[in-house]
C-alpha cells in the first residue's frame, strides 16, 4: 500500500511540472526538425544568435528586444517596455507553448517576412537559454 501511495503522491507532486519549460519547448521544436531532416544536428546557440540579429527587412529581434536578451526592450513603434526574453532574467518566458507559438508566428513575420522553421525556433530558444545575467 505504501508503495502505491508513494507513486500516487509522486504523480500529485509532479503534476505542476507538466507545464512547459524553455528546455522542453526547445526539445519539442528540435524533435519536429528531426522529423524533416535526418541530418539535423540539434539546437545551436550560434545559429540562434545569428537569427536574433538577422535583419532582411525593417526589424530584427534585437530592434525591440535589444542586443542583450537579459535586458528590457522597447517596442519599436509604440515605445512600450518589453520584459527581458532570456529565462535567466525573466522566469515567465517560455512557459506556455501556445503563447510561444503565437509570438513566433507574429515576430517571424515581422522580422523575416516568413514563418520560422522548427529548427530556427529551437536555435533561438537555445541562444536565449545561453544568455545569462552575468554576461
Amino acid at each position: 500500500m505504501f508503495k502505491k501511495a508513494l507513486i500516487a503522491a509522486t504523480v500529485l507532486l509532479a503534476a505542476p511540472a507538466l507545464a512547459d519549460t524553455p528546455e522542453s519547448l526547445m526539445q519539442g521544436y528540435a524533435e519536429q526538425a528531426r522529423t524533416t531532416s535526418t541530418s539535423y544536428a540539434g539546437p545551436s546557440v550560434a545559429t540562434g544568435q545569428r537569427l536574433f540579429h538577422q535583419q532582411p527587412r525593417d526589424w530584427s529581434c534585437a530592434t525591440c528586444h535589444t542586443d542583450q536578451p537579459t535586458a528590457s526592450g522597447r517596442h519599436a513603434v509604440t515605445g512600450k517596455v518589453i520584459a527581458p526574453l532570456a529565462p535567466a532574467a525573466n522566469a515567465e518566458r517560455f512557459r506556455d507553448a501556445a503563447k510561444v507559438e503565437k509570438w513566433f508566428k507574429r515576430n517571424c513575420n515581422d522580422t523575416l517576412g516568413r514563418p520560422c522553421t522548427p529548427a530556427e525556433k529551437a536555435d533561438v530558444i537555445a541562444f536565449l537559454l545561453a544568455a545569462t545575467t552575468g554576461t
Partner: protein
Amino acid sequence: MRMFSGIRRIDLIVWSLAALFLAHAAMAAVPPTPSATATVYAEECGACHTAYPARLLPPADWAAVLATLDRHFGVDASLDATTRAAVASQLGVGTSVASTSTTKTVPRITQQGWFREEHDEISAQLFRSPAVRSGANCGACHAGADRGQFDEHSVRIPR
C-alpha cells in the same frame, strides 16, 4: 483477504484524488469565461501598447481593427479565433467579427476628431520625441492610461 480488499479501497481513494487533481489542472486550459475577458484584452493588446479603453473607438471601427490583426499598423498581431472573440466581446463588438474588413484603411484612435481636438496644442515634434515616440504611447504623458484614466489634470508632458 479482508486486509487485501482494504488496501484496494485505499488505493482507489488515492488514485481517485490524483485523477481529480489532474482533471482540475486540465480544466485550466479551457477557453476563458466572460469574467476573464477583461484580462484577456489587457494581456493580449496591452502587451504591445496601452490597453486603449473601448470607448476610444466606435464598435464598427474596433471590428475593422480585429478583422485585420494580421497586418496591424505594420505588424502581425494575429490572435487565434477564441482569443479574438474574447477581445471582441470586451470591446463591445460582439462575438461575430467579420473575417474580412470592408474598410480600406484601419481606423486610428489618433485620427478621431476628438483626439485631434484634445491634442491640438501638442506639436507633431513632441509626439515624435524619444520620450513619446508615437501618439499610440498614451502612457508617456497620461500616467493612468493603462487604467483608462486620461484626466487632463494628471497629464505630465515629458521634456
